[in-house]
């Protein structure tokens, strides 16, 4: 297992380096001088020179890259050009808001997704199964921001039950979480169902039945644990996508999370902030995937005992 962990860690370090490189390139291949683009026509040459010096873009590219990586590791990515606030503190503030929202939606998606998927697998071929899968494919096909608006219209405007925007009270979380989680719940339900159906065809399920194991236990004890690997893989990607996808929901509900930060920085062409958001969202995503991969070891003894890689 140590070998497996070591291998995964090495891979992660490599990917992290790749991410910093990609993010760095992202900024430096923007057509034209980034500073000029940033300041648009307002700037006189002297001012441009000054900003360049501030951002360090007057140095040669390799040195810039090293400075960038150094800053990234030290959690110091400079200041936002517009608000003059350190990028890190802005990110942190935004991240806390988004993380809360994403965590709640994730919980919602996992509970609904796995239970519906299991139910559909148990009732395979029956009306319950077809109904649940219809709902799932519908949920997968609707854009989250559209669901958010529909929820606002129904629960906020027509029924006047829940607040339309903001996150200042617990009730506020309900609509954004549902809007953000629906699509993921649907895909989790689908993968749970297919993975379960795949597993219950296996010989060891027949062995369990031949032992006289109760049908409910056949599903819960014998099938689910084996079906988990594809589900957990999906969960990892989904959590990362949820963090990024929350920016659509944040826009609808006027929440100032990390997503809003990302969108604003890009529309304003606020270079340090763009770098920061892209880099750290990617880093979080990679860390989540690392945790997922390590959790395979808990599920699959083949990995735990050295064989898998």
């Amino acid at each position, binding site marked *: 297992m140590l070998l497996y962990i*070591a291998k995964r860690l090495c891979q992660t370090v490599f990917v992290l380096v790749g991410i910093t490189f990609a993010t760095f390139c992202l900024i430096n291949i923007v057509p034209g001088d980034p500073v000029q683009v940033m300041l648009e026509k307002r700037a006189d040459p002297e001012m441009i020179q000054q900003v360049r010096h501030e951002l360090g873009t007057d140095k040669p590219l390799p040195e810039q890259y090293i400075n960038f990586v150094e800053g990234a590791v030290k959690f110091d990515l400079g200041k936002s050009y517009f608000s003059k606030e350190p990028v890190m503190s802005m990110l942190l503030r935004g991240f806390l808001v988004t993380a809360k929202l994403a965590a709640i939606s994730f919980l919602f998606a996992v509970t609904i997704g796995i239970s519906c998927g299991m139910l559909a697998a148990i009732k395979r071929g029956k009306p319950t199964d077809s109904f649940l899968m219809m709902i799932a494919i519908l949920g997968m096909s609707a854009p989250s921001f559209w669901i958010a608006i529909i929820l606002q219209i129904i629960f906020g405007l027509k029924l006047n039950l829940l607040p339309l925007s903001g996150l200042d009270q617990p009730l506020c979380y309900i609509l954004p979480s549902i809007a953000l989680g629906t699509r993921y719940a649907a895909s989790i339900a689908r993968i749970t169902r297919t993975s379960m159906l795949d597993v219950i065809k296996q010989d060891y399920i027949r062995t369990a039945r031949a032992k006289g194991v109760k049908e409910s236990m056949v599903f819960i004890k014998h099938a689910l644990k084996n079906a988990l690997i594809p589900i957990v893989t999906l969960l990892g990607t989904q959590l990362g996508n949820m963090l990024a996808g929350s920016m659509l929901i944040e826009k609808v509900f006027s929440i100032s999370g990390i997503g809003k930060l990302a969108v604003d920085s890009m529309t304003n062409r606020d270079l340090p902030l763009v770098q920061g958001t892209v880099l750290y969202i990617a880093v979080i995503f990679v860390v989540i995937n690392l945790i997922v991969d390590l959790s395979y070891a808990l599920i699959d003894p083949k990995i735990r005992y050295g064989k898998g890689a």
Partner: protein
Amino acid sequence: MENEKHLLEVHNLTKWFPVRNSIFSRQQNYVKAVNGVSFSVKYGETLGVVGESGCGKSTMGRTLLRLLEATDGAVYFKGENILTLSKKKMKEKRKDMQIIFQDPYASLDPRMTVGDIISEPLDIQTSIGRKERTEKVLAAIEMSGLNPKFVNRYPHEFSGGQRQRIGIARAIISRPQLIVCDEPVSALDVSIQAQGINLLKDLQHSLNMTYIFISHDLSVIKHISDRVLVMYLGNLVEISPKQDLFTNSAHPYTRALLSAIPSIERRGTKDKIVLQGDLPSPLNLPSGCCFHTRCFMAKEICSQKKPELQQVGKEHLCACHFC
């Protein structure tokens, strides 16, 4: 010259598969699938290769044809070492050597018609005209006992036995001199198996081919072979003319193998040799004689010294300290 009698001479053939143990350790480990096997095959004979799964018999068959590159050793085909031939020269040689596979499902491309599958060796090797190609394909189909009407059908419409016949037709279309048969009938039902064996025997006579027949089934090997080679963990343990091997087996592994076969005729015989334990891993071969961990005759010397092949009868060689 002695060589004239031999179609194939194999010297010290070795195939090790490297396994990366760890990204940190510099020590390279190997799955030692075939370890220094030497033998020769005469024109027109059938050499049976027998052993349990994991003994390296299929790997050896594939290495002989350079479907896998050998780690060490030499294979002389009609006096020429094919392991050192260039790609281009090897391609020409491939006309003379073919292979029949075990799995009737994985060995036929599901997206090709039967005709295209069978003519593949011709399409790759030669640039003959359509008419000639058609004739050759039809001839091969008929020789394999299939209905020529099937040419445009796809493999999924055929049963296991018929698919195996398609595989045989593909192997014989370029009129090879040597065919490696890798468990060609193992996946078939008994009644179909007998048809397959008879077909292979008939083709051998009419086309004058030499077979290396790989199987785990000693009774099939006994029926079809002229000489038999027994392998254990990548090592040749005994090679002998058929009669001698079955009446007078020298190696304890061969004897155990023979006695383990459940047979109708030997029903009720009580003095069975039942080997204990499992096959050791080919990653860590036992020291000395690789069979000593399961051998009922093992003495101290067996774990220390690797036995050499010794002559025990006419053309009968055995690698055991006590034979």
